[in-house]
């Protein structure tokens, strides 16, 4: 695990996250969100969880980001003029960040270096998914089907 790579990726990701939270144009914010997810996937790669990183890119960049930009396209009235910015939210966010950082830095048991670990193969993930986690997997399948049908019904034309 490389510190230089970590710092570069982290700065990149956090800059994109700030852009996604504060840019005025909605489309630019949505595209910054894509950069955030690519950055997080890079962090996953750095941590040795390649499969999750690829799944993240696949699902977020390929599907969720396109959904977001399509929603922006379909709700045209407010595009480009998001006026309100609540400074109270900023104060809360900074307070949460300060509290979390303080507690992380003061917990001595967290100052550990990664142990040596054999690489996690896709085969291992598949085996775990199909043995220990087979019921959660089925439940997620059911949930995704329900979400699909629910989303379809929500966007159907309203009957007047």
């Amino acid at each position, binding site marked *: 695990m490389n510190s230089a790579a970590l710092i570069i990726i982290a700065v990149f990701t956090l800059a994109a996250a700030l852009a996604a939270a504060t840019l005025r144009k909605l489309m630019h914010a949505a595209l910054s969100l894509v950069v955030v997810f690519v950055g997080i996937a890079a962090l996953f790669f750095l941590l040795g969880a390649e499969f999750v990183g690829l799944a993240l890119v696949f699902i977020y960049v390929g599907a969720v980001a396109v959904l977001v930009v399509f929603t922006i396209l379909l709700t045209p009235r407010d595009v480009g003029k998001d006026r309100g910015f609540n400074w109270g939210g900023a104060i809360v966010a900074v307070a949460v960040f300060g509290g*979390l950082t303080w507690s992380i830095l003061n917990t001595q048991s967290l100052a550990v270096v990664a142990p040596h670990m*054999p690489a996690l193969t896709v085969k291992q993930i598949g085996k775990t998914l199909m043995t220990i986690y087979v019921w959660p997997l089925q439940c997620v399948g059911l949930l995704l089907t329900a979400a699909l049908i629910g989303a379809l019904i929500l966007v159907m034309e309203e009957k007047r």
Partner: protein
Amino acid sequence: MTPTLQIFLIVSAALFSTGLLAALSRRHAIFILIGIEMMLAAANLNFIAFWRFGPPHQPPTGVMIALFSIAIAAAEAAVGLAMVIAVYRHYHTTNVDQLDQLRG
């Protein structure tokens, strides 16, 4: 120097706070969804980091939880965005401050 768990946790905390900032201070419904997605991603980063820095030779629970969380976040995004479109059709706005009627 090899990075410790703390650095990853701080990055994740910063990402979470940025998501919170987007969710709390913007008025547009899509910004709130973007903020929630960022917070979920920060949580995923925590799961993966704890798995990597945890004891070796265990079933990869952190990775599994992150995978399930990604799947659920995708479902949440789909339903959330469908709701944004439905609300926009009805009220012709996506500003959450103006959605204050209980009457349809």
